[in-house]
């Protein structure tokens, strides 16, 4: 049987190329919101997302006019940032958890309207 040039290879090659192109374009343009550390926030004026570890004792209530007040710290570091958050508080939120907040910096305080806790690694060797 004579070996014909198989259309399958062409299809696969084109698909792979197309997929790669889509990935590159998408991630270059819109992929991912930059996530800053508390030490990097100062000077950023617009809307950003900040990721850090909750330290100290949170106070207030997220659905009250004054909001939920807590402090987050660089995961690996000591720089801290005070946060005021208004909205729903996810279950897993507590001191020691890694969280991500979205909002903007105003007068040295980060005013946030989105709060996300990372699913904690259930399997860390240290107690939760």
């Amino acid at each position, binding site marked *: 049987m004579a070996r014909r040039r198989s259309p399958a290879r062409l*299809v696969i090659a084109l698909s792979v190329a197309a997929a790669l192109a889509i*990935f590159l374009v998408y991630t270059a343009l819109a*992929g*991912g919101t930059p*996530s800053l550390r508390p030490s990097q926030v100062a000077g950023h004026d617009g809307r950003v997302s900040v990721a850090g570890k909750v330290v100290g004792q949170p106070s207030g209530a997220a659905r009250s006019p004054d909001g939920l007040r807590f402090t987050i710290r660089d995961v690996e570091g000591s720089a801290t940032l005070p946060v005021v958050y208004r909205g729903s508080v*996810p279950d897993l939120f507590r001191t020691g958890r890694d969280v991500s907040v979205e909002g903007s910096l105003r007068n040295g305080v980060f005013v946030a309207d989105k709060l996300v806790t990372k699913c904690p690694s*259930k*399997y860390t060797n240290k*107690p939760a």
Partner: protein
Amino acid sequence: MPGLGSAALVVAFGLVLYAALAGGYAAYRGRRRLLDSATNALYASFASVLLAALVLLAALARHDFTFSYVASHTSHELPLGYTLASFWSGQEGSLLLWLLVLTGIGSAAVALNRRLIRTVLPWTVPILGAIASFFALLLVFVASPFATQVAPADGAGMNPSLQNPYMLAHPPLLYLGYVGLTIPFAFAMGALASGRADERWIIATRRWTLASWTFLGFAILLGAKWAYEEVGWGGWYAWDPVENAALMPWLVATAYLHSVMVQEKKNMLRVWNAVLVAGAFCLSLFGTFLTRSGVINSIHSFTQSSIGAWFLGFIAVVAGASTALILYRLPLLRSRTRLESLISREAAFLYNNLFLVAFALTVLWGVIYPLVSEAVRGVAVTVGAPYYDFFGIAFGLPLVLLMGIGPLIAWRRASLRALGRSLLWPAGTAVIVGILLLLGGAGSSPAGLVGYTFASFVLAAIVLEFVRGTRARHALGDGSWFASFTSLVGRNRRRYGGYVVHAAIVLLLVGAVGIGGFGTTREAKLAQGQSLQVGDYTLTYLGSQQERAANSQELRARLAVSRGGDDLGTVLAGKNRYFAEQQTSNEVAIRSDWLRAEDLFVIADQFNPDGSVFVKALVNPLVNLIWLAGLLFVAGSLITLWPDAREQRRLARRFAEEGALARA
């Protein structure tokens, strides 16, 4: 007793290491008794690991806090069910569960295929042994469940989010899925290593693969239901890396299940299948790694636990070894059959594979891109739902379409006219449904509208398949229509079981689109007596109440629900405060309307000192179709898996024909 547990694990480690090394030598040199000995070692390792597991279970049941594991994951107040389930809620215990399932089903698969292994697949045993050795190594040297300490007064307790019935089922089912993928991997690589080019290993592992895939899929949905009810943000899938960890191997396994059919029937795609099965297994290891290494929080937290490094190393070894083996056997795998036409069932399977693998890679990229970005650019990013939604739709819609077209298209070369005729009714139905939906207001979400149109196309095509098949069967004999139907499905289990599974996936998509594209959310602060309007429902705050449960304080807001003047009862939403763990969790109220397949989802966000409550309410249309789809999915798989006496006879005849090949 911890000494017994540790000893059992050491013995198990020795046994699986022997199975790997001696089995490898036996396969290389062709030594029968040594291979039998290695196989026995595998069986014995299961017994040993089982003993270790029983020791841990007993310690949990006794609240024996001299076991560090028991102390860090349970407490006196923890109900018995959750205490036992904490076997798999922690690092060491879950690794033990992995090893238990691996040695268990590995031994079963080997035992059931003794003859095949002895004659043509000797390498399967050392491969299983090697994989088990990794986990046993971790359990003995890195993360032992049997570490001891001075017993504290009370244990640390269990994370409240884990304290619900889903915790009892989700991890074991998930592991049956993950670990189950080891079997086709070991057999496939065993076949390659032995230089086999025939298909018997596919036939031997077909049901194992299908069963594992079903467990994995069901476990993912169970996890989603858990997140829906317990984490309670109103949604069912957050594209969290932990969720994606299980989705990726499932997608690749789906691709594998389809393309292996092409290999069986047309002897094509052999290299591709080897790559897919290795990929599925590596992704299941990767998924296991993701959920326990802490790497997803930050690339830096990776170094806090060395387990992550071990896993990455092992995945690299497995991926490297599989690649080397496939390349080594490339001449053997290269098939002489070529794809004849781009419009054929073979091509449809190929397209299906491309989309599934592309989507799996997209999810993988979404998971590792933040890590890559941080490592390379120093800038951390988060990849959110919009990324996944975009590609989910981009790849999902064509996949849905293929589900409808694929079964209707002929092998080898389909004539467009014949295809057009087959597609006429389903396409027509879809257009009509689309127009009706558009008139009904579904145009608010264009992607949703297109999705629903495609979904009705597929469902119509599936119904048509059943109708045509039953009609043809009925024309042959004189039974009732019902008898024709059951004998049709009974005699063609793979085909019609597969259709049921397709229908389940389509149903799932309909539900997902419903909740994703057509839902409503409202929130307000309510004083006693005040109301909130959401969708068709009216919620009125009646008052709050408190109650003390075994290990928590339960605070609830009572709300009256009504719709269009009809009283629909009351719901309780609020929070639980757990004593030992010092944590609060949301307890949402979900009122399911089965007739409309929608949910009223109520979250009591905050209880204010002045007696008012902050409530957030959502209407999730069609969400219950998702859970229904899960059940249908399992039903379809069961039909496909069900032992077929006629197929068994045919295979037995085939094996007998191989005559001298069946000696030993």
